[in-house]
């Protein structure tokens, strides 16, 4: 069980997050919705250890990941919204930063990297990859070490339908193996993937159940 409790974050007098709390069970996908600038990315940054919160806990099996960075690094995979890959290098060289040669051979043969079909473009430089390839490679890098929780910041924005479906297939696979995900999103398809959704508005997290009424959702976000 993953528990986020009372996370707050201020930038000066501006309170971005006010006591954000929720839980994530194994195999669950949590969707965080919100307008631009609502604090979704800040929340994910705090959970990923990139920013320090002003208060709160982020516990997994009773251990506070905000204080134990080594455990956090092992437990979490953070996938930023933008492409984080090193442009000059090809897929292989990017992966080598994360995996040993042996691990890479194994993963490409019949592991998670095979599942992401990264073996198909190992020698392609990042600068010549499609958006889908970059995202798959990013996920492949982030998943090093078999984390239990993925933090995804708008994972399929700017991807075409085919690429999105490939990514969603992988999410389903990860979920079915007991992995959990927290997704910051605007995409309806992703919302439909989620077991639970929350709307972040004025720094406060509100539970939300998507019933297919897009106008209602837009109204809440506004």
């Amino acid at each position, binding site marked *: 069980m993953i528990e986020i409790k009372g996370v707050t974050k201020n930038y000066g007098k501006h309170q971005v997050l006010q006591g954000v709390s929720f839980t994530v069970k194994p195999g669950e996908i949590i969707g965080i919705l919100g307008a631009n600038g609502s604090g979704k990315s800040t929340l994910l*940054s705090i959970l*990923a*250890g*990139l*920013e320090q919160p002003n208060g709160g806990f982020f516990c997994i099996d009773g251990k506070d990941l905000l204080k134990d*960075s*080594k455990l956090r*690094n*092992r437990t*979490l995979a*953070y*996938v*930023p*919204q*933008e*492409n*984080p*890959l*090193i*442009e*000059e*290098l090809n897929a292989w*060289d*990017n992966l*080598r*930063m*994360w995996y040993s040669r042996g691990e890479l051979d194994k993963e490409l043969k019949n592991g998670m990297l095979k599942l992401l079909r990264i073996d198909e473009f190992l020698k392609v430089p990042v600068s010549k990859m499609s958006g889908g390839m970059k995202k798959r490679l*990013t996920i492949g*890098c*982030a998943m*090093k*070490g078999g984390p239990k929780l993925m933090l995804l910041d708008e994972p399929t924005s700017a991807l075409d339908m085919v690429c999105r479906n490939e990514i969603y297939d992988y999410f389903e696979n990860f979920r079915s193996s007991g992995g959990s995900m927290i997704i910051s999103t605007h995409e309806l398809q992703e919302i439909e993937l989620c077991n639970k959704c929350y709307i972040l508005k004025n720094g406060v997290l509100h539970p939300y159940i998507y019933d297919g009424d897009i106008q209602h959702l837009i109204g809440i976000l506004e």
Partner: protein
Amino acid sequence: MIRFGDYFIVQLKRVLKLLPGILIMTVVVGLVVGAIGYAVVNSDSYKDQQMRYKLGIVGDNQDDMLTMCVNLLENNDDSRFMLDIIQFDDEELARAALRNGEVSAYVLITDKFVNSLNALSNDISLEYFATSGQRGITGVMMDELADIASELVVSSEKGLLALEEEMRNAGFPSEAINPQIDQLLLLYVGAMLARGDMAEFSELGLANGLTTPEYYSISLSLFFLLLMSFCSVSFFLGKKKATYQFITAKGLGAAWQILAEFLAYFLMNLFCVELILFFVRRLSKMRIIPSQNGKIIGDTAIIKSEINIIAVAILFSAMGFFIFELVTGVINKFLAAFILYIGMAYISGYFYPKSFFPDMLQRIGRILPTGVAFTYMEGLHRESFSSLVSSKMIAGEYISIPKYIFIIAIYVAVFVSGSIYIRGRKIRK
């Protein structure tokens, strides 16, 4: 978890990908700076005809002979140029004035010299000190002193002949006059004309004992190292905040990221510098670069260069790294670095001798990283040559190499720490 070594290797791989383009740029910049250096060192721009010289005279003001010398110098100042004579009581004052650019040169007239003239033995040379910034003055002074010598001889001859006439008029017999006058004439003419070394010339150098070629070869070598940051700016392109965050989320924080990137960047710069040095040496040995210039570039300026240049390369790499980390956007990076480098190089005396600037500017120029690098190189130069030449040629203050290495280390630490701080801020927001 990402390890430091893995990230460093990735940075080295980036360097390898970028290296061909960087090397081409480096060679182009090296050729341009080399051409400027060649032009400066071999320039005839210091036309003595166009300059007005201030000459210092050091010696006893009360001495008649010295007063006569000064008068002669002033009176022989013909239309080719003008000399301002400034008298100093002691050599330290004259040397300080020379360093500050208040005089172009000074002549040291010792008591021994005056006594030897008075005794007509005339076996002591004048000591003449000049900066090589006014190279022409050395030749001009030689001509002038030769003129003075000729005038002295002619005037003395006239005086002796007048004495002979007076003695005849006074009724002295020829047997008494002729041998004495002949002896006096021979003695005086012999004393003056037999000398091929009317004065000994010493170049105190443009700044603290460096000659023009030495000064500009050091300054242009350093400027070349500065400009190398432009050549390797591609190392900083394509880097993204998302990458920093992605890597931080897996345990490699800002400090380790910067250290790995800086180390790779520095090694790349050092490789380019060493490669250039290698080719300069080769070309010098093959006499494609004239031996004198080859020596200046390959040996004199960058003494024991392969090792000694590391301190400067690491300083300029750290400074470049900090600027490129601080400033965002390709054009902004170029502009910021260019303006800063030109300004710092100018103030630190890379384009004009430091002594041309006001005291305050000289002090600022000296403490800037560019100034520290210059003093370090200057110190290496003196250390290398102190055993080869007389101490008289090595003017200026003592430069402690360990002290300057320490200052360089502090600068490097500040730049790297600053880069870490900036990276940390980028990661957080």
